[in-house]
């Protein structure tokens, strides 16, 4: 191996057909560990085949390829390698480290990807939180209020959805069952919209209450829009309708 006395601004190697290093520039010695005297030991294991394939051409036209190299600083560093065979079967190789601005760009791209991934993550966490809040809201949208030993009331808040009715059903059934009530009032004053599957679930709840306790179940506080909607569902075989809590209470107080 001969050290060249040329001052070249990039690492330079001259290599024979067997891959043995014939001569090298000062910078090549500075950047790479040349102790084995073989080009294979400078190239990352997974780039060796590429170098073999691309450099095995018979012609003398210069070729350029990207290779991962093992430098003294890094176990894996990307280089543009320019290679040309001369008539004496020696390959001149010049090693150009991939432009650092390129690496900058790649790093920025990675950063943006990471940020997207973490934003995605945060959104996911927010979504979980939101679902939890919604479930909690559903739980709190049907409080059980005992009015007397024989009368209790469950005001419903917000839209009637299947999820909500499912959520409140259990605690509602338990509370009613625990007491000795004769009349259960469902107050719909604070109900917004009614979804069909929500009302189906509601009917299920009312039926269950009816079978379990034999109680009289009354719906109160029905607004006109709700009345129209409820009319489709033939609720009257399961419940009685009254106008308002006030009216219901006055009947009750007169007794």
């Amino acid at each position, binding site marked *: 191996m001969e050290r060249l006395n040329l001052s070249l601004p990039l690492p330079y190697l001259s290599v024979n057909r067997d891959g043995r290093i014939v001569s090298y520039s000062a910078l090549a010695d500075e950047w790479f560990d040349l102790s084995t005297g073989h080009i294979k030991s400078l190239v990352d294991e997974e780039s060796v085949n590429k170098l073999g394939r691309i450099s095995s051409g018979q012609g003398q036209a210069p070729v350029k390829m990207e290779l991962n190299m093992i430098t003294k600083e890094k176990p894996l560093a990307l280089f543009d390698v320019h290679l040309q065979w001369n008539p004496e079967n020696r390959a001149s190789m010049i090693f150009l480290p991939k432009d650092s601005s390129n690496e900058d760009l790649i790093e920025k791209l990675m950063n943006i990807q990471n940020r997207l991934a973490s934003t995605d*993550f945060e959104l996911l966490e927010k979504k979980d939180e939101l679902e939890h809040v919604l479930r909690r809201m559903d739980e709190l949208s049907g409080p059980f209020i005992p009015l007397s030993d024989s009368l209790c009331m469950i005001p419903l808040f917000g839209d009637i959805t299947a999820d909500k009715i499912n959520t409140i059903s259990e605690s509602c059934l338990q509370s009613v069952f625990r007491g000795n009530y004769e009349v259960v009032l469902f107050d719909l004053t604070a109900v917004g919209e009614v979804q069909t599957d929500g009302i189906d679930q509601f009917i299920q709840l009312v039926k269950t209450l009816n079978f379990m306790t034999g109680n009289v179940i009354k719906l109160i506080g029905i607004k006109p829009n709700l009345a129209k909607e409820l009319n489709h569902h033939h609720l009257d075989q399961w419940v009685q309708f009254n106008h308002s809590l006030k009216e219901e209470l006055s009947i009750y107080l007169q007794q």
Partner: protein
Amino acid sequence: MTPIETLASCLLEGDPDKAWACIENYPETSRPDLYHHLLTPAMRHIGHLWETNKITVADEHLATATCDFILSKLAFSIGKERSGGKAMFLCLDGEQHYLGLKMVDSLFREQGWETRYFGPSLPLEYALQTAESWKPDIIGLSVSIVYHLPRLQQYVEAFSQLQKKPAILLGGRLTGMYDLRPHCTEDTVILGDLPETERWLQNFMTGGQQSGTTESIPSPPVFEC
């Protein structure tokens, strides 16, 4: 061009819409089949193009980002029904090859698992922090570059000390190329590819960790190479 080459060229162009159109040609194909028989071979083909000096590493990065987008889009429609356990997925510190890991994450989510996907390069201390507080049943690791291997042992050993004893899965390109057993603990499950992971998960879910096996049932090719 085969469907795989067509997809690879769309990914290299960095055109997510065109790449998505390739995927939409197969509305009946399941997600795992798309991953294993279309997206993975397309990315392997891109690796081959680099080896044959047709493209540069910068092109590969663009293709990776585009493929990442496609994976996110594919996984978007997975339902939120939760019927499995909790699993977290990460690449070793410094490891940037995360697409396979992302596919595995989606596989678990599709089976009703709650997952945390950390993607490329997660330092051990952060991974441990999450594992300690979130208590996953499974921790999935990915490694694709040989010189990241020395770190593997640290990760695997740290996770095996966890109180809840999560099952530790190891995947990534290297599992198919070398015997990684010496870098793992005895209990580490080494998985060669996506179908193997799928089978392991099925077994894990039906019979618990002990009967988790990876016996091979060859899956038929879906797309011509």
